[in-house]
């Protein structure tokens, strides 16, 4: 295979993750013209471009920005550094090559296409996967009923309203209380629609607390916890949606049905990292997150292939995406600039136990880790007054008390390189420890 064009670092996706990775790679010493951002839309920024509400950037810029403003800051940073973009361009396939590129590393071949350049191949020494995620559709939820128009994922509705200026409906029920669902409940209301209810299968919301307050409570929109949609009426356009309460087994309880007349059902029922390209390349994926399994450098099982942002695991705040992508950019730069990098050294595995669903990273090579290593994770239930416990080789290393832990919010622990080296640790365990008086909801 030959490449029509060669770069050192190819970044797939020009959303917040791809942009921050590119900026970070350039700041780490890679010449900007050796970096390339491949973006399928006609503008960079990704899904942030349709997130016109504010609340972005409190951690990164210490101010409240809208989605497009937040993206704009990173677009400007990338442009100021002269990092090239390929817009309106789709990467359709990645494969591994045998030959070494200019950086002395095994080349990966990206098949891409766009209207101007046609279908062509890019060779890259390092690839940063930053494709983001997609929304879980109705079919995957097995909601019975008719299949009329008027059923949208919350993100599709958000695009119609915020980008196209069009309304997907007049009266809506929203299933799922993830952040996009909550944001869309408010947006639909502000744009003149009536939101009958937000319905959540779990006994707790999957969204941020601040969004429940600002998007539902402030507008008097009821949040129906432990409920789900059991029927959709309407042959051509949605005419009514029936919900019912669910038991602890999450199955509907007969007799609890309630029908709302409405013309729209919005779904905010989870996000799925978009890893079709990664899968085709042979990247090992986690059964829990749906994203690649990575080490401290956010490098996948394939040397020189890194991942960050929602393609790696679904984030709650974009600030964490930017931070994580910064690490991926820095590490991809180190990879292409260090011709003699060894793959050996000591590897510490990071295990999740009680209450913790996954960790990113899943392993740490102490030789390559930064002075401070962030380990991000999510819990599987709501815990009050519980502890995040970190064990080194089965022995308690640290306990951090938390007033509340919820599946909707990403958690993190930060470990120092010196602590890990001093302990000579080979396995780190992160788990939730409930206080005797603590209460726990859900499963």
């Amino acid at each position: 295979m030959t490449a029509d064009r060669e770069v050192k670092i190819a970044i797939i996706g020009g959303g917040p993750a791809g942009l921050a990775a590119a900026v970070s790679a350039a700041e780490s010493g890679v010449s900007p013209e050796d970096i390339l951002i491949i973006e399928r839309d006609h503008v960079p920024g990704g899904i942030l471009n349709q997130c016109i509400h504010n609340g972005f950037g409190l951690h990164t810029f210490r101010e409240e920005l809208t989605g497009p403003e937040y993206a704009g800051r990173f677009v400007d940073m990338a442009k100021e550094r002269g990092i090239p973009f390929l817009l309106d361009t789709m990467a359709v396939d990645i494969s591994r090559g045998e030959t070494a590129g200019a950086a002395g590393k095994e080349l990966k071949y990206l098949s891409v296409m766009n209207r101007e350049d046609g279908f062509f191949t890019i060779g890259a020494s390092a690839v940063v996967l930053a494709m983001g995620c997609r929304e879980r559709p109705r079919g995957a939820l097995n909601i019975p009923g008719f299949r009329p128009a008027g059923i949208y994922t919350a993100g599709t509705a958000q695009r119609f309203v915020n980008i196209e200026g069009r309304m997907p409906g007049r009266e809506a029920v929203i299933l799922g209380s993830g952040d996009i669902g909550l944001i869309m409940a408010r947006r639909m209301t502000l744009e003149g629609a009536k939101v009958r209810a937000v319905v959540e299968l779990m006994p707790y919301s999957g969204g941020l607390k601040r969004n429940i307050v600002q998007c539902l409570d402030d507008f008097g929109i009821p949040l129906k916890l432990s409920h789900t949609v059991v029927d959709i009426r309407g042959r051509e356009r949605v005419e009514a949606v029936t919900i019912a309460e669910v038991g602890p087994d999450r199955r509907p309880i007969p007799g609890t049905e309630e029908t709302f007349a409405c013309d729209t059902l919005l779904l905010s029922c989870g996000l799925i990292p978009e890893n079709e390209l990664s899968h085709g390349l042979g990247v090992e994926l986690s059964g829990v997150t749906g994203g690649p399994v990575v080490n401290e450098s956010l490098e996948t099982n394939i040397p020189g292939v890194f991942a960050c942002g929602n393609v790696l695991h679904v984030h709650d705040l974009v600030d964490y995406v930017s931070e994580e992508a910064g690490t991926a950019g820095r590490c991809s730069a180190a990879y292409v600039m260090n011709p003699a990098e060894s793959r050996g050294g000591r590897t510490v595995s990071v295990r999740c136990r009680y209450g913790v669903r996954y960790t990113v990273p899943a392993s740490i090579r102490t030789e390559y880790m930064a002075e401070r290593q962030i380990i991000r994770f999510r819990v599987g239930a709501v815990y009050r007054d519980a502890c995040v416990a970190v064990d080194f080789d089965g022995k308690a290393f640290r306990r951090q008390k938390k007033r509340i832990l919820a599946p909707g919010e990403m958690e993190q622990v930060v470990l120092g390189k010196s602590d890990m080296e001093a302990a000579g640790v080979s396995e780190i365990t992160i788990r939730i420890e409930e206080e005797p008086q603590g209460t726990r909801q859900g499963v």
Partner: protein
Amino acid sequence: MYDVIIIGAGVTGCAVARELARRERSVAVLERGLDVCEGTSKANSGIVHAGHDAHPGTWKARFNVEGSLLMEELSKELDFPYRRNTSLVIGFDEEDRRTLEGLLAQGLENGVKGLELWDGSRVREKEPQLSDAVTCALYCPTGGIVDPFLLTVALAENACVGGVSFFFGEEVTELCRAGEGFVLKTARGGSYETRAVVNAAGVYADVFHNMVSEDKVHITPRKGEYLLMDKKTTGFVNATIFQCPTKMGKGILVTPTVHGNLLLGPTSEDIADKENTETTAAGLEEVLAKAGLSAKELPVRQVITSFTGLRAHSDNGDFIVGEAADCPGFFDAAGIESPGLTSAPAIGRYLAERINERFPAPEKTDFIAVRKGIPCMADADPEERKRLVAENPLYANVVCRCELVTEGEIVEAIRRPVGAKTLDGIKRRVRAGMGRCQAGFCTPKQMEILARELGVEEEAIVKSGPGARLLTGYTKSNIS
């Protein structure tokens, strides 16, 4: 005055239309939907049955075997996806074995080639995902799968190029004799005169038949629910897996589709409402439970959509095909349930011959029997992709990322004869929105292209029927 009017643009109506187009006569198809393939033809198993199921001597047996033999040649002529993937009817005990022996004998009598009775270990060697409880199976090498949408679209396009007129949104409400011919009135006020009528109205075929014939028939909608799984399940099974048939049909099957998805279903339930295409929690659970008897470790988390089809079941259980005895010029293709998709090409030929006997017309000298499909980016190799993009830059603009469908393909689906006018129409022709995100990502882009190509506002774009509008107006237009 038309020579022939066909009621219904499903696979049967379109197959008849295409065969009629071979001769010098004026033919029209009246369809109440906005597109072809809007009823039973769009919601079925997509199976080309080998032909062992129907009782010898029935219309079903005859047309099934004939249709199965015609399908491969037709798929090349009209360029639609068809694959002879073989089928297995599996059994779990001695009673099932006797049933399979009966099917084998029946198949031989119907003229089905290559049937063999296998034991459990041989079955699992071919299909390792099958249940350990399987003790025997009927192996049917001529069993196949087809894209039911593209089969129908291909027939319709070819008929249209051959001079057949298609009228959509025309729901026939009255049908009566007028002299030697017929007059048909439609809900929108249309009036059509014709010498002959072909009744290919699916679950409504009894209504039209009974308008002109005293020999009353009755069609029961027999509901079948399905689950469709992600293409990640490709290879879960390679053959189509049937359980032993019952009086309600061929049971729940587990089959690959021609596009590499996995399809489970259908249930079988007689209902009264000819419009009741809703899925139910109980139905979907039944599909999973019964499919779980055939195969182990069903990838239940890979479900991407579910749907319901209505089989047009006649009271006598057979197809009703041919000229009504008491109504010359009125030709039925009624009670077309499974194996109706397989049989369509044969029914088309048969009815065209009967119509020609009554109303002879010379063969056209310029009939074009060949149709080319829309080039498919997803299936193309890198060289082919390069060529497609070079020829038409719109082929480089990916609209549906899950199925890798480009703007070039969508534009062609709209511009073709009998082209797509709805989102579902695009989906069935080029698979945009058919994948794992189920059109979440590409709906706005497809609407933009449709509106541009049709020269209408985006508010006018529908999913399927005229009432299936996708947008309700501009933002804030509701606020006074």
